């Protein structure tokens, strides 16, 4: 069941199983790639291009990324520098949603395609949630009452149970009909100002490389009207000492996969992130958790976690930098990067609808091996679409 690469150009994402488009149960997707960085990159880019401009495919932005590098004492300076350069984000309080659609902001910020917004402290399973994607879509996930008062065209949420209690309204600001002054534009604005003056806290971020004076000006002008704080992503590093880690070699990926299952691997990674130690072999009353076999001892390791509103462009450059880590010979044969998505985001994995049900988890872990092979795990909850 394995195939070798012959041409990079012909690499395609596999077609999705129709029945799996909405798995309805927690699902783990595993992708293992062979033969080097070029393939890796092309798969990676095809994610980026075809599903919202991010691999982070989570809502286009993530609350947390964590990187684990075994056998590493100090975070490489280039990686640390890159993490430090991640752009700031804003938390705006009580912002009426229609403010996003005002002409100046719409023309100068939204239509440039670098802007991300997500309502903050709104729960997708009980509140109205709003997100703005850099592709130009404003997505409102609202309950039935709000939807009926709003008077905008939307679709019933896919994750309704028997009765339709939630609707999703998508407004594409790049459409001609949404040009300021047009009938539709007036209607949307009227809905959001008069019929339902929706207001919530927002997280804003903008990709910094695309700095344009007009864009900056319009964003500042909007922010200055409201109470807002600027935040930098918070970096936490943790040095791991004397522990076991699963041994993973690229040859494992070429055969029938590693000896341990991806669930065991992710469990171990989760345990490391939560600072859980393997159980005491003598007294196992509390827990019988153990590191998956085969494992090897690791004298030290580096775990760093970055928390905040992180943009896919930044995560992409971080991944590129991590791949360069193996340019020089290292003791470890792999490293792992985990990106979590917002559990309350109305979309995930591009633009597929996202719900909560039990946990709303959506994250991916990419394991980079020293020969640039990779092992990608994408995990979804029950109310989630099929990742790309």
């Amino acid at each position: 069941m394995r195939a070798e690469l012959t041409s990079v150009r012909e690499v395609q994402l596999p077609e999705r199983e129709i029945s799996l488009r909405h798995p309805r149960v927690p699902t783990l997707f595993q992708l293992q790639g062979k033969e080097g960085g070029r393939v890796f990159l092309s798969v990676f880019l095809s994610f980026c291009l075809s599903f919202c401009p991010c691999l982070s495919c989570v809502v286009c932005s993530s609350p947390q990324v964590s990187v684990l590098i075994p056998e590493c004492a100090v975070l490489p300076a280039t990686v640390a520098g890159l993490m430090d350069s991640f752009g700031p984000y804003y938390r705006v309080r009580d912002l009426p949603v229609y403010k996003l659609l005002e002409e100046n902001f719409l023309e100068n910020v939204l239509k440039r395609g670098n802007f991300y917004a997500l309502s903050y402290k709104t729960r997708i399973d009980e509140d109205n949630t709003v997100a703005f994607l850099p592709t130009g879509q404003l997505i409102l996930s609202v309950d039935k009452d709000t939807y009926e008062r709003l008077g905008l065209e939307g679709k019933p949420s896919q994750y309704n149970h028997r009765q339709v209690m939630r609707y999703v309204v998508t407004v594409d600001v790049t459409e001609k009909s949404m040009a300021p002054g047009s009938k539709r534009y007036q209607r949307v604005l009227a809905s959001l100002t008069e019929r339902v003056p929706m207001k919530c806290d927002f997280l804003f971020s903008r990709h910094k490389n695309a700095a344009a004076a007009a864009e900056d000006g319009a964003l500042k002008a909007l922010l200055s009207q409201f109470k807002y704080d600027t935040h930098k992503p918070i970096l936490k590093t943790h040095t791991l000492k004397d522990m076991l880690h699963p041994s993973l070699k690229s040859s494992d990926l070429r055969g029938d996969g590693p000896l341990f299952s991806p669930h065991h691997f992710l469990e171990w990674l989760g345990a490391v992130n939560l600072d859980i130690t393997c159980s005491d072999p003598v007294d196992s009353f509390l827990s019988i958790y153990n590191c998956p076999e085969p494992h090897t001892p690791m004298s030290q390791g580096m775990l760093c976690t970055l928390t905040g509103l992180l943009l896919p462009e930044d995560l992409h450059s971080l991944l590129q930098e991590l791949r360069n880590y193996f340019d020089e010979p290292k003791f470890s044969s792999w490293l792992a990067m985990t990106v979590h998505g917002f559990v309350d985001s109305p979309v995930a994995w591009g633009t597929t609808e996202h719900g909560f049900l039990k946990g709303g988890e959506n994250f991916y872990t990419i394991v980079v091996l020293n020969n640039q092979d990779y092992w990608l795990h994408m995990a979804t909850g029950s109310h989630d679409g099929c990742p790309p």
Partner: protein
Amino acid sequence: MRRADATEEPAAFERRVYRNAAAHHYMKIGLVLESGERNIGAVQFKQLIVSAVRDLYGEVGGAFNFDVLCYDESALTAVLRVYNSGLVKLWSALTLLGSYKNKLCAVRVMQVSPFLLALSGNSRELDLD
């Protein structure tokens, strides 16, 4: 389920889908005591849950294993691991747990997931205040 590209070439990767395949569920819980007491050790904490399960389901029904993966004594929070088959029983026993040493208490279930990793990056815990 498992899939690979049908032809041997030019596929460069293989995609496998594990649908509902996790053996365990993980729960992040917190114990709230009316008295505000904090000195409960990890072993006592597990014993409290074990006895809650036994009280509700009896010796036979309550005879399933779960793990206390980590326990924070100062905040009285813990991460539990339980086989899927025991999740409902454990959860219901935690919900109905109402007293510790004859004092009122409650267990708050903060997060439940089939992925332990999801517990380490919960965006609902992103606190900017």
